[in-house]
């Protein structure tokens, strides 16, 4: 009885605890989002801004095949970069979790964040450009005579995107792998699994939540990226993020920019919901059964 009341009180207090966070989100996320939704249904102002007149023009403009092509390209670039990022981040996270020098590795993963992202992108320009580090080094070694086109194309965009977002994949993967019981791999080997079989049949299914988090943390920012394609991309690298910037600053079509922003938000939201439901179901899968046992009055 007493504990029941305490629980009730705790629940009521819980609302107060979450109030500051709730206010913050309302003012800095929900309100701007509503403004974006509203703007996307209004008429474009002549010099930017909007006129207060309801219209679906922005959405009609969005169906333009050129825009659709950019949308599909963005989806493709984001998906490909995410897959490569996760493939690279998984062994990194595994090695870090098994290493004795975890703190050092964590520091090395985090240190790049101390430098502004634009500066890091410019560093890549210095590395990849036709007179850049890679080309000069290869020429000096006599491997190539002419500079390779390493920059201002799709490949450069994907390379730099992977570089930018791989820490966001490594960190959640590292934390889940660190909690993984490595003896399960020995058990799998003992029972007849080869090394790859033990990884794919035991490790991967047990770190699913970390993989999903890593996918979300890389896919969503890459889907909305605009600086990387702007600075290291070519004509074929234009992405949704670039459309939004151009519609706001150059074409001054704020409703269209809002509509595209909304696309990014919707795609991101779907991703987050997928992440939340799958981690929730995983938790239910592992935990709920224990409650069933309790309900039956202990275990036989």
């Amino acid at each position: 009885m007493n504990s029941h009341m305490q629980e009730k009180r705790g629940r009521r207090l819980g609302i107060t605890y979450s109030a500051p966070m709730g206010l913050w989100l309302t003012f800095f996320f929900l309100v701007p989002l509503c403004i974006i939704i509203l703007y996307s249904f209004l008429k474009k102002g002549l010099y930017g801004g909007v006129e207060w007149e309801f219209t679906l023009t922005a959405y009609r403009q969005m169906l333009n095949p050129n825009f659709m092509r950019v949308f599909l390209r963005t989806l493709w670039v984001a998906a490909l970069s995410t897959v490569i990022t996760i493939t690279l981040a998984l062994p990194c996270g595994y090695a870090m979790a098994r290493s004795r020098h975890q703190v050092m590795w964590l520091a090395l993963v985090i240190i790049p964040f101390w430098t502004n992202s634009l500066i890091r992108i410019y560093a890549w320009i210095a590395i990849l450009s036709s007179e850049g580090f890679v080309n000069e080094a290869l020429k000096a070694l006599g491997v190539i005579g002419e500079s390779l086109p390493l920059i201002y194309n799709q490949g450069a965009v994907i390379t730099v995107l992977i570089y930018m977002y791989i820490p966001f994949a490594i960190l959640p993967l590292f934390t889940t792998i660190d909690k993984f019981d490595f003896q399960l791999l020995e058990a799998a080997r003992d029972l007849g699994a080869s090394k790859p079989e033990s990884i794919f049949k035991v490790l991967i299914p047990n770190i699913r939540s970390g993989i999903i988090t890593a996918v979300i943390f890389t896919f969503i920012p890459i889907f909305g990226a605009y600086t990387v394609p702007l600075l290291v991309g070519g004509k074929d690298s234009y992405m949704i993020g670039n459309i939004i910037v151009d519609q706001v600053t150059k074409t001054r079509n704020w409703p269209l920019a809002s509509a595209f922003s909304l696309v990014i938000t919707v795609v991101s939201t779907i991703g987050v919901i997928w992440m939340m439901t799958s981690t929730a179901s995983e938790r239910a899968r592992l935990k709920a059964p224990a409650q069933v046992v309790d309900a039956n009055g202990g275990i036989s």
Partner: protein
Amino acid sequence: MGKRLKGFDVTVKDVSRAYGNFKALDDVSIEIRKGEFFSLLGPSGCGKTTLLRIIAGFDSPDNGVVLLDGKDILPLPPDKRQVNTVFQSYALFPHLSVYENVAFPLRLRKVPAGKLDAKVRDYLHLVQLDNHMDKKPSMLSGGQKQRVAIARALINEPSVLLLDEPLSALDAKLRQNLLVELDHLHDQIGITFIYVTHDQSEALSVSDRIAVMNQGKVLQIGTPYEIYESPATDFVARFIGETNLFPAVVKQCDPYEDYYMTTLDIPALGTEIKVTDYDNLAVGQHVSFTVRPEKLKITGHQPTRVGKDINLFRGIVEEPIYSGFQSKYYVSLENGTVIKVIQQHANYMDEGPDIDWKDQVFVSWSAEDGYIVEVVDS
């Protein structure tokens, strides 16, 4: 399940393994026979788990060989060895059901569905988990998890089953039950069991033979009876069961029937005692003398007739410990040395044990009940 599998013998020869400066295994040699229930017994850090991991293939020795059925298995990876392991923490796959955990090795070998199903059910029945096969490991109790681990390890039909402290996470009552089940299972299946434990009572109760290990070395290999009654070293005597152990010097050694009646000078007891031994020991030799507490007799009154091969001491009870079926007394002898005595309560006691705290008592044992453990120098 009337299944009988084929057990292999395991030969461990001159195996050493060091981690930096720490010698986990120091030139260990053990021969384990076909179908034997063999225990590796020792305190934590004695190297028993390292040896098990070497046999399983998770660790490799710096030198030495491990033969399974006469064939060197050290070059083989763990998945190619005909041994399976029951892990201390069970190591059940949390993402798979009980059924799928047990089916795991068969699915790897792509066993056809019908055969797989029959076999999995067969082994789940063997460990009495028929009604739990759809549950996830997190839904099971410790004892049930242990059974799943055993079924999963047996389904590959290994020749040797390695058990790494499989019962240490369970409570005492359940441990006893599972130990008996394990023993039955061993008799039923007939493969070789290698059982690692730090619990001497576990090892004594189920093993055919035991290797007692300490600091990376094998101190003694023998049947439970041999290890308990004639320990090879001071350490074995102290580690297996309880004992009274004193350094002694041989005073006299005379032939007596088909053995020798030895007189030992024991400074800790302040006197000489008699003990029978099979060896003719040289006078002046330093040895260790041991007598188990349950072999001592304790009485409140002075025995009237004392045979010449009876050792008798007078003392004060410092600490009586009553535990139902027996009492243990710490008796302080006249020179201050404390000796442990265990008295079995075979008969009904109306008013409790007749020996109490601070009582004067007489402790005695026959020369035949003592044992000379170790010749300290030669």
